């Protein structure tokens, strides 16, 4: 039966996440925006809390945790980890996106491990905080062009290369590094490797200064003859040209809805605060009168809220499909594209609606507008999502539609 409300069984979790966002994220949000690279101590305690929520909820976590696709057959409609994680992520990012990205043991590396690791690896890496390292100085969206190499040498892979834009790279205990087994083969040879911090040859070279999400550390690494145990390769070690990139790219079908969820939560924060400020100035939005008969500001809020609502439901759709093991690459990209761009448009427009109040640092509106931009970039830029969507709809290969 078609129903697009928050499922009853997740309402408690959503309410808990909302409390965390309200009581812990928001009051510390501005402080860590200014104190870039300072570690938000408050998150340690929260990490433990989230671990508890994840365990207690039967894999229905509130952070960027498990988004695994179990093989078990079940019939009927399922609302499970992907949906609950998306809902929890929205609430937490209503509080602060940078904090969510800094939540211990909730990194994108964790999502990758949860999505593609073997049972043995899952057990071995359980309870560890894992970051994700894909981007290199010369390649971003074109991740098939990475140059970091992995060469099998006895019981180890030897990794060489350079990685940038590693979210939580300083704070995480593990980094999932993408490297190629053979640069001549292309996509199919790219594998991901779990690298322990402190492994000789794995060196953090700097932290970036950024437009937004400053509470989250963004690290650059150099890998120099870094020896990683053979069993740290995630998924299938053989090079399967047929399957191509599928192994590693499959992670994105699960993580893109989560980045979309971040943008949705952030956009909601911005809309809600702007609405409060505008209401105090006498601007009320009416949901029955035509937009054109309301004030320009109210009509603008309606436009923004409509885009917000579309992004919100596209995100839930993509997560719900993942829960129900329906192929969702198209919907994941639609959600990411819509939420990414709407997040930017909404937060920037909210700054404009609130004038210098919105632009100044007394409010968080300007910070949210800065934070929003990265969400239309990482885990696949707007343009990459558009390519994925178009190729799927038009039945085009990456050679045809470049």
């Amino acid at each position: 039966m078609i129903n697009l409300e928050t499922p009853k069984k997740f309402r408690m979790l959503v309410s808990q996440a909302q409390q965390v966002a309200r009581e812990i994220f928001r009051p510390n949000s501005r402080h860590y925006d200014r104190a870039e690279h300072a570690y938000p101590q408050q998150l340690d305690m929260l990490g433990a809390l989230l671990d508890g929520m994840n365990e207690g909820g039967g894999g229905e976590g509130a952070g960027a945790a498990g988004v695994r696709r179990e093989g078990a057959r079940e019939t009927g409609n399922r609302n499970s980890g992907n949906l609950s994680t998306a809902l929890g992520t929205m609430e937490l990012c209503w509080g602060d996106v940078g904090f969510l990205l800094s939540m211990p043991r909730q990194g994108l590396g964790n999502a990758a491990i949860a999505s593609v690791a073997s049972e043995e690896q899952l057990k071995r890496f359980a309870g560890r905080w894992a970051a994700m390292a894909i981007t290199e100085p010369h390649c971003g969206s074109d991740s098939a062009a990475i140059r970091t190499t992995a060469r099998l040498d006895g019981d180890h892979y030897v990794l060489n290369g350079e990685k940038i834009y590693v979210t939580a790279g300083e704070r995480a205990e593990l980094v999932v590094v993408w490297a190629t087994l053979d640069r001549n083969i292309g996509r199919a040879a790219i594998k991901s490797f779990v690298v322990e911090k402190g492994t000789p040859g794995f060196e953090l070279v700097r932290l970036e200064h950024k437009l937004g999400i400053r509470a989250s550390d963004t690290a650059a690494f150099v890998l120099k003859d870094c020896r990683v145990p053979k069993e740290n390769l995630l998924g299938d070690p053989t090079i399967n040209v047929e399957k191509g990139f599928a192994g590693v790219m499959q992670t994105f079908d699960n993580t893109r809805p989560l980045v979309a969820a971040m943008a949705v939560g952030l956009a909601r924060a911005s809309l809600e605060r702007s609405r409060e400020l505008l209401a105090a100035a006498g601007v009320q939005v009416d949901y029955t009168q035509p937009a054109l008969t309301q004030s320009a500001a109210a009509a603008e809020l309606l436009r923004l809220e409509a885009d917000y609502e579309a992004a919100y439901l596209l995100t839930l759709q993509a997560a719900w499909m993942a829960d129900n093991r329906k192929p969702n690459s198209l919907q994941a990209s639609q959600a990411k594209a819509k939420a990414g761009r709407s997040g930017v448009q909404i937060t920037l427009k909210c700054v404009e609606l609130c004038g210098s109040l919105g632009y100044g640092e007394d409010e968080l509106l300007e910070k949210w507008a800065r934070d929003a931009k990265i969400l239309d970039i990482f885990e696949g830029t707007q343009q990459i999502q558009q390519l994925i969507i178009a190729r799927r709809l038009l039945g085009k290969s990456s050679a045809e539609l470049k």
Partner: protein
Amino acid sequence: MSLVNKAMGLGLRLINRVSSSEQLDRLHLRKATERALRVGSRNGFRIATSAARRFAATRKLLAPSRLPRAASDPQLFDLSPSEEQRMLQDAAQRFAMEALRPAASEADSSCAAPAELLSGAAELGITLLGIPEELDGAGTESNAVTQVLIAEALAQGDMGLALACLAPSAVSNALTRWGDAEQQTRYLPSFAAEHAPVAALAVQEPQVLFNPFALQTSARREGEGFVLSGVKSLVPRAAQAELFIVAAQLEGVGPALFIVESGGAGMGLSTEPAMGLRAAATARLQLDRVKLPATALLAAGDAAVYAECISLSRIAWSALATGTAQAALDYLIPYVNERQAFGEPISHRQSVAFTISDISIELEGLRLVNWRAASRADAGLPFAREAMLARQLAAEKGVRIGSDAVQLLGGHGFVKEHPVERWYRDLRAAGMLEGMLLV
């Protein structure tokens, strides 16, 4: 130009327009209109509304019969239509693609829907869904979502024909939702019977910045009953309609809905063909001191009922926008793949491909927001917000999709050889008009 010349010019222009109008021939209205011109009418509404049958109650109901809230309380987020919904959706879709789409172009240019198409639509049982079983219908519970799915499917065939097919059920749906026992027994069984009456929900008025909550059409109390005066715009199938529900500002109360049988004294029509939706044979309805009995007022003028009516109508329009936008996307994909320029399909260019992506994103967003509105209505939750947001998307994204569809076909999109120019015209209506439809 002198004032006299100007007045003369206006008069001649009017005669020129009316006498050269193909609309008149197509709607078989020339005789009536010529007569109207001869008698030198001061207003243009000289076409009579059709004579209504005698609506009479054939049974008694102790209390009004409503469709209850959906029985099963949805615990989970779910985007899968039920088995029954899928069946109805499939039937509507087949009808849309096999019957509506091929007839759409001719219906658009002739401003009329073929009678056999309209009876075909009746056979789909769309109207029955909104009428309780007790009154010979097939409805068992509130089914706004089901009606949205059907409306989407029909609009994939053609929006104007979908409007023509669905317009009568706006009236029967309203009577089911808000009619009292007497109103329901008088009218609803005929909607469930063979030769169901054509009917229309008339809210829109010919005003700039039209606001359905600030109507120019007025209702005055006189004796036991009411007197209605005003003009309603773009009323679908008005010339055939036997029954109207008319929105009017009730003095001392606010906007309210009135049941108006056609053929009454003071009622007149003039054809009002528009940019699109032409298959629905839209017309203006004039009410010149039309006398109504006390029983004509729906829901005792309850303001909440009126607001709900406006929101449910917007949901129906957003469903039509969704269906037509889907038709556009489905038409564009093979076109841009086959059309060659500079030695390759134009779909190999990002500017073309990304337009396809954007259409799909905004279309899907519109669909989901509207589904949420409808499912909240079925669950008995407030839904004005969601209906308004869907309308906002239908207005902004729907129009953009119509425009992009023509743009991607270039000059071919501008000519009537392809349906996209019609979709461009129809999509302009869906996020803008009030009333006419109701889920």
